[in-house]
């Protein structure tokens, strides 16, 4: 009886194979190649192992400054996504069927648009003489034209819009797992709205919030289209610098070293976060 329910040991391997194969080809192999490139010298001593690329990244505060800005912005973006996304997800989980479908549609719709197109939309809104500037002017709040283009605030606004769906959808998944009776029980036992949220809904949606925020953080730390279009060249982020090294300066070794450092730094932040949140009621 138990034998027939337990899948054969080969079956999972069989099912995993295509995914693993793809991961191997499209992720592990290029990552290893990048790792190799980052420690191999070019030029007169081509082929020799070297740490010069890493030394360059650490030797001056220009790249440290870029890294600091990148992490700072990613943390802010993730925090704002959590602040906006959690209440939104709660509202969506409690809404009627029709309203919920509509809200999901509104949230998901931007994902169907190319990130470049969406970002250009922000250029029109945030730019000098754009909608934002015009509105503030019309309301008499400002005299001159104001622009959030080429500012860190602009990057955060545009990135939150781009990444919010990832947090809302994963959190909504978690919220839908919570039996309605638990919240009802809390209310019956005298918990107010906020207390119910704090002690029942929030802890039980931690898995969704955790994976959602990790997703948002990882995407924002590695994104370069939106930061480079909205932030401009004077506010470089790490991914943009890597892109510039690879395609503009053709310094692949240094670009590879920056990539490896970004990967390590991201893992150093994400792994403890995952461990911590899984202890807080997640899986």
């Amino acid at each position: 009886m138990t034998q027939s329910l337990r899948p054969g040991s080969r079956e999972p391997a069989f099912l995993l194979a295509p995914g693993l194969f793809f991961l191997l080809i499209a992720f592990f192999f290029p990552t290893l190649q990048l790792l190799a490139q980052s420690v191999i010298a070019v030029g007169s001593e081509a082929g020799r192992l070297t740490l010069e690329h890493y030394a360059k990244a650490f030797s001056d505060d220009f790249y440290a400054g870029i890294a600091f800005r990148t992490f700072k912005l990613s943390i802010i973006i993730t925090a704002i996504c959590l602040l906006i996304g959690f209440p939104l997800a709660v509202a969506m989980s409690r809404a009627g069927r029709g309203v919920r479908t509509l809200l999901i549609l509104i949230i998901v719709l931007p994902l169907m648009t190319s990130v470049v197109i969406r970002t250009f939309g922000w250029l029109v809104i945030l730019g000098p003489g754009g909608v934002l500037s015009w509105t503030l002017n019309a309301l008499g709040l400002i005299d001159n034209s104001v622009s959030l283009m080429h500012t860190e605030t602009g990057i955060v606004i545009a990135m939150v819009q781009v990444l919010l769906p990832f947090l809302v959808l994963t959190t909504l998944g978690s919220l839908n797992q919570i039996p309605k009776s638990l919240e009802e029980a809390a209310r019956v036992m005298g918990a107010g709205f906020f207390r119910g949220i704090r002690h029942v809904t929030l802890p039980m949606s931690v898995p969704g919030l955790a994976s959602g925020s990790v997703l948002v953080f990882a995407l924002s730390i590695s994104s370069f289209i939106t930061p480079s279009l909205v932030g401009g060249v004077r506010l470089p982020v790490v991914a943009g610098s890597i892109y510039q090294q690879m395609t503009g300066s053709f310094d692949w070794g240094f670009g590879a070293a920056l990539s490896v450092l970004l990967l390590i730094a991201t893992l150093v932040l994400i792994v403890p976060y995952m461990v911590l949140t899984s202890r807080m009621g997640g899986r």
Partner: protein
Amino acid sequence: MKKIKSIGSAAIVLASFAFSNGAFAQETLVINSFGGSYEETHRKLVITPFEEKYNVKVEVVTAYSADALAQLRAQKDNPQFDVVHFSGGLEHAAAAEGLLDAIKAEELSNYGQMYDFAVAGIDKGIGPTYSTAVIGLLYNTEKAATPPTSWKDLSNEAYANHVLITDAASNTYGLLGFLMMNQVAGGSLDNIEPGLDFVKGLLPTSTVVSKSPEIQQNFAQGNGWIAPYAQDYAHTLTKAGLPVKFVQPEEGGVLAPITVNLVAGSKKRDLALKFIDFSIRAEASKGWAEALRYTPTNKSVELADDVAAEVVYGEEAVAKLVTFDANKIAANRAAWNEAWARAIAK
């Protein structure tokens, strides 16, 4: 009936195979072009007339300069291209790597009609410049009360807060404009500090953009009044309905040549040379000026006044154009990119 038709079409297919290696087959030349409206114009001015004149087929692969160079490198032992077009100076890198072949003056019937700069490097594998972009100053004719006359006008208080600077690290036109500011500020290709200082002085009252659509957007929204950029782009903006004009500053505009090059090891060298010769003939050079406002490199071109006013026209004006040593640019590019990024980063 259906059967007969299919037998018939099979016979046609077979016949075409049989002839494809025979004397009836058209020769095919493989070239690159840059896509979009550029490629459209390219077909109209050069490619289609060439096919008709010589009864050959020209296969066009859409590839920008950097992609074309990467493909040439990858195909070094068995080149698939016969002719390659470059903008942004990459022909110098390609020639230095032996990917392009030298051309003799007597191999081009139009050689004598060309400005010297346009054919200066053909013996080293750098193909003729069949037209050129010119980098100078674009300004908004409604907002800028007095038109700029000098590169130094970028720091003129009249334009403060409305100056656009193009990123030199990611944009070739931006780099050429920067090198000119550097020269005017007293620098040279061996010392870009004066240029960096000049730009640093502009930064507080200017916007740095990296792509041409951003220039259009800033001009359209009234934020940009003056920008160092290409003359042909001024025409693009005018066509979009913006009040924009181009001036060649008194210190000179910068040449940004577009070249047509002979690929080393091409199996159709003779036909490729005919194509290159056809590309630099006066009629084509004139067409580029009329359609997209690229400056003609063929001296015998005669332009109508309205077109002539929007390109650099005539030997006297052309003589003022400045050329920067592309080999030095290539050698210093990485270091300059880094210095530039540091100078402009907030």
